């Protein structure tokens, strides 16, 4: 099988969102970077499928020079090579999908093309679906279960009260959610091997955005002044009192 997984570099924000002075981005001077947990599960699933059936896992990102770091992380999990569409600008979902679709056409055929259900930061819920239309493939979203057999994919999607099941023929596009699997921690030798795997970097030109970000805003009013009920085990009677007041005990 040939599987493509698309991932996006995002900052690891801690307890507080801090913006740059121009309000265009999160202040990342002191932050590390990662990919969405959904995408991490996508990479793990692709690697497991290829470990079982043979083939190749390709990871792709559209992002700045530094996003090469996230491609190497994915290669440490087991992806075989990377495609880096390099741009320092911010792209909207429509333009991102168009650029990814073009890269797919240049590298076809893939049996399975994997996305996160939504990105961790912008959360547009759309890139995977748009790419499916652009390359003319069926798409199933939000997978928590995937079984590939005999050229078909059985896809399970979590819904209130259980799971909906879809059955599609390959090639197909899927978007996945965290919980699909438990991703491995890459070993040190795997991280070293990742450094020498092929990474194809090419610059891309951003079209005019149709969903244009004007500025970011940290929502106010979420900070509270907590009532301190006490320290250690001695606080227990007061806690139970509060539970009674709230009608939960």
């Amino acid at each position, binding site marked *: 099988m040939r599987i493509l997984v698309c991932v996006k570099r995002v900052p690891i*924000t801690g*307890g507080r969102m801090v913006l740059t002075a121009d309000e265009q981005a999160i202040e990342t001077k002191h932050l590390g970077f990662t990919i969405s947990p959904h995408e991490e599960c996508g990479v793990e699933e692709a690697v497991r499928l290829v470990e079982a059936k043979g083939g190749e896992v390709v990871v792709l990102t559209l992002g700045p020079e530094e996003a090469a770091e996230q491609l190497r992380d994915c290669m440490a999990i087991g992806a075989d090579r990377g495609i880096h569409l390099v741009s320092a600008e911010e792209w*909207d979902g429509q333009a991102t999908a168009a650029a990814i679709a073009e890269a797919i056409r240049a590298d076809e055929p893939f049996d399975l093309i994997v996305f996160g259900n939504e990105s961790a930061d912008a959360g547009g819920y759309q890139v995977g679906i748009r790419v499916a239309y652009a390359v003319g493939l069926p798409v199933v979203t939000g997978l928590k279960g995937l079984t590939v057999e005999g050229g078909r994919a059985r896809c399970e999607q979590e819904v209130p009260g259980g799971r909906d099941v879809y059955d599609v023929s390959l090639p197909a596009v899927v978007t996945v959610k*965290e919980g699909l699997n438990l991703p491995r921690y890459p070993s040190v030798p795997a991280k070293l091997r990742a450094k020498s795997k092929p990474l194809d970097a090419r610059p891309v030109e951003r079209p005019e955005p149709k*969903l*244009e970000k004007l*500025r970011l*805003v940290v929502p106010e009013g979420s900070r509270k002044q907590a009532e301190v009920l006490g320290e*250690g085990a001695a606080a227990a009677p007061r806690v139970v009192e509060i539970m009674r007041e709230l009608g939960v005990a």
Partner: protein
Amino acid sequence: MTVVVFMERADDELSQQALTLARSLGGEVSAATVEGPYAPGAWAAAIVAAAGDADIVGPGSDRGNEVMAHVAAQLDLPLAANVTEVRGDELTRIRWGGTLLEEARLHAGRRLMTAAPFAFPLSVDSTQTLVLTPELGGAVAVVDHVAPDTGGKVSLADAKVVVSGGRGVGSAEGFAILEELAALLDAAVGCSRVVTSAGWRPHTDQVGQTGTKVSPDLYIACGISGATQHIAGCKGAKKLLAINADREATIFAHADYAVVGDLHEIVPAITAELRKAK
């Protein structure tokens, strides 16, 4: 007709919130429900056909965002997901699961958007309603439904009380004291991502941006630091009680009640106090 609203069901809360957003756009609003098995692409095609050149709005649910992304792909138009406010072609939408907002402008003749959950009041009064029957053809559709065995336990999403544990719990076995407290309160047990990544609990227990979003009457956060991605999942709780050894922990800035100290002493003490009273 100038705005069409995709309703998951006529009585669905998030859809009724989308209806409220639609009414804020100005113009005549029609609500559309779709019949037959769930088939996102085919449903979207039916909505596109019925909408003419109207703006289209959907709920900010999994299905709402999915169907609207199909609509946007079919029309090759931009889609603004999880919008909290609209001002003509400008809007505010949520990022990072609601812990950050973005002000943006749509550059298109038509507006496609979904309404962020719980950003708008419900619209319950009657609206002109369209019932659509899509052409399924070979479209991707749900073919089966499987229901897990919950063992009669209250689900995380529905629980009135959630007892949640983070890295501070220390191990899979450490959750026994949380389980015990939860059983007394008829509560569900939740956890942070550190806990699921370590394999101490299944991902179905994870609360947060990439886990379950909960809205209990009381959320008890034990040994959880309060990262924005965790808060994204529990900010719907009516009250939050935080138990943390570090009095500077961020979680206290989101809490209504605070207990400072070792959860391994505090949680069993609360359990004992509850038993004593019964």
